[in-house]
């Protein structure tokens, strides 16, 4: 016991040292004077909390051990196909009806969450399936966003015309980056992609003439519904807007709901494509590559093309989401594409369970919606975020909902082949 006590003291002291810069110093603003003021109370509270946690670690472990023994990890359930189909349709219908009943703010946050769902699903292919740790994922997101902004600004193309172009641009960027770096593995690949993400951001910041530099690009048009704009007045002479066409009162909420529905359709499209891909030979090859690259080579699978396809597909998904992001925001600048975005998307994938689609969707919703709901804790967002990740690594390293393997029904073996 004295040893535990001593250890707890030591840990508390360490926690005190580490939390001083975060919790112990408050910024005081008086007029134009900014001063730092020490405030020992939060630090002491944190130290006390850490001390207690450390002291009680062993009894807590015993308790959690009992819990774990009684509550086993949920078995993967294989619902019959018909039920699954009905369930999926119900969820989609609910998601489509919901915005008409919810508040404008909630729908807006949900749209943001859907963008992260798209990003999470795309990165899940690269990290979860192919096992390539990509820390510069936001670069492709930026390519999509700037692609749409620039194409619409210079060539007057609409959102729907730009979407496939943005996807292609992001995919090409992905392959261009992928080609030289994919012979790297693990940590080395992570470092290079991290650098690539920063390069793209710095380029956007410094290519003033093309991208507007830190000022960004504004007035990016929103998507239209078959040519019907969502605006009080049409931007083109003689054009019809949505509310005029249907004879409705103009309402700003229409735009928000429409954007949400567009995001929903795009997310469903991505989900469908990914779900097909992972059941196709190329999807299986991605997973095989993650499992054992040498075995892949020994069976005639070319690791370079497989990696490139995963990287290119992940990048194109990010470009897809990026184009929508630019349209939704109406304004983009390099600040939206910092490393922290890549980190959040990666956290979504890890939290959800690598390779698990539903896990990633839930994690994306949780990680974007929760900070909005708990606004008062906004300052500690990153702290809580880190804590959650650490706890996950300890208790559930496989993610919230780990991927399950598909069951394949085998035909009766033939006598000869």
């Amino acid at each position, binding site marked *: 016991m004295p040893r535990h006590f001593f250890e707890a003291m030591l840990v508390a002291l360490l926690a005190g040292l580490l939390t001083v810069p975060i919790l112990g110093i408050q910024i005081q603003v008086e007029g134009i004077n900014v001063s730092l003021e020490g405030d020992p109370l939060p630090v002491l509270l944190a130290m006390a909390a850490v001390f207690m946690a450390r002291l009680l670690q062993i009894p807590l472990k015993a308790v959690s051990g009992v819990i774990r023994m009684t509550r086993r990890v949920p078995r993967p359930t294989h619902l019959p196909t018909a039920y699954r189909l009905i369930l999926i349709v119900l969820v989609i219908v609910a998601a489509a009806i919901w915005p008409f009943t919810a508040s404008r703010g909630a729908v807006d946050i949900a749209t943001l969450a859907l963008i992260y769902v798209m990003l999470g699903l795309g990165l899940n292919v690269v990290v979860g399936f192919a096992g390539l740790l990509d820390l510069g994922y936001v670069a492709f997101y930026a390519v999509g966003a700037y692609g749409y902004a620039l194409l619409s600004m210079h060539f007057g193309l609409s959102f729907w015309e730009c979407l496939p172009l943005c996807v292609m641009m992001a995919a090409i960027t992905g392959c261009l980056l992928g080609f030289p770096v994919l012979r790297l593995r693990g940590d080395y690949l992570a470092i290079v992609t991290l650098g690539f993400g920063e390069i793209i951001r710095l380029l956007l910041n410094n290519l003033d003439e093309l991208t507007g530099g830190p000022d960004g690009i504004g007035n990016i048009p929103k998507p239209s519904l078959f040519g019907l704009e969502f605006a009080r007045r049409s931007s083109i002479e003689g054009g019809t807007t949505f509310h005029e066409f249907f004879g409705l009162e103009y309402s700003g909420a229409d735009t928000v709901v429409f954007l949400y529905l567009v995001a929903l359709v795009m997310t469903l499209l991505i989900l469908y*494509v990914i779900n*097909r*891909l992972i*059941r*196709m*030979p*190329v999807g*299986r*090859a991605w*997973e*095989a590559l993650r*499992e*054992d690259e*040498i*075995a*892949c*080579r*020994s*069976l*005639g*699978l*070319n*690791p370079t093309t497989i990696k490139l396809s995963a990287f290119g597909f992940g990048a194109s998904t990010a470009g897809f989401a990026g184009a929508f992001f630019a349209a939704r925001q109406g304004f983009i600048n390099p600040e939206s594409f910092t490393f922290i975005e890549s980190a959040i998307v990666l956290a979504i994938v890890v939290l959800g369970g690598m390779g698990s689609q539903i896990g990633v969707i839930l994690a994306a919703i949780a990680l974007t919606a929760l900070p909005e709901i708990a606004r008062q804790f906004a300052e500690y967002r990153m702290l809580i975020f880190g804590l959650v990740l650490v706890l996950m690594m300890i208790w559930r390293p496989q993610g919230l909902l780990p991927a399950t*393997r*598909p*069951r*394949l*029904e*085998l*035909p*009766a*073996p*033939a006598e000869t*082949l």
Partner: protein
Amino acid sequence: MMNESNLLAAQLPAPVERSLLQVRDLSMRFGGLLAVDHVQFDVHRHQIFAVIGPNGAGKTTVFNCIGGFYRPASGTVLLDGHSIHGLPSHRIARLGLVRTFQNVRLFKNMTVVENLLISQHMQLETRFLHGLFKTSKYRRAEAQALERAAFWLEKVNLLSVANREAGNLAYGQQRRLEIARCMITQPKLLMLDEPAAGLNPQETRDLDQLINELRAEHDIAVLLIEHDMSLVMGISDEILVMEYGRPIAIGSPDQIRNDPRVIKAYLGEE
């Protein structure tokens, strides 16, 4: 009949042409160490050829050089008359030379069937749009792939564990799955790196039978590395003995058994 074919063989310009795999002057250097020193041998069609030798003799290095996993310092390797020297390993595999590994390399977190589907990658419909819209062509290809998988699972007696994760199988089952995974690619030459390591005597006898069956029914040649002498002496047509990277003897099991150099290498002098 027998004599006639022998006569025909004798009339051929060079016996070299008949062989499926032809390894000449193969050397591999790791820094100052000559791990493989001028090894040469031929594997003929339908032949079971074994490479034996004490630990560290360079047997696996020979495999890695032939399979394109290492880039040999010198020498030539011909498969079916075509040079495969310096080709990347996946190209060599597609030409019909596949291998198993000394310490089984399965896709451990994937199911047994999936392991067999992956190795059919090259024979499957991989075009994006076909798969995306589940065209009939795609469905047919997938169904055939599953059929082939079922055939091979029955062959190696793994049908009952088809949907289990490969990493959870017993060791002997993992070894058999690895062989099935190679065979499903329809190779010309199968290289087995210590297939009996870690197997019990019964499993070893089954393996012996399986290898003979594969040769008889599927028209392949087998090149194997093995320490289990009863297995090697029982099934091999020809044996190459290596020591310190150098080939010290080559011949039929009987010749090898009585070769003084081999006895010296294995048992030491006096």
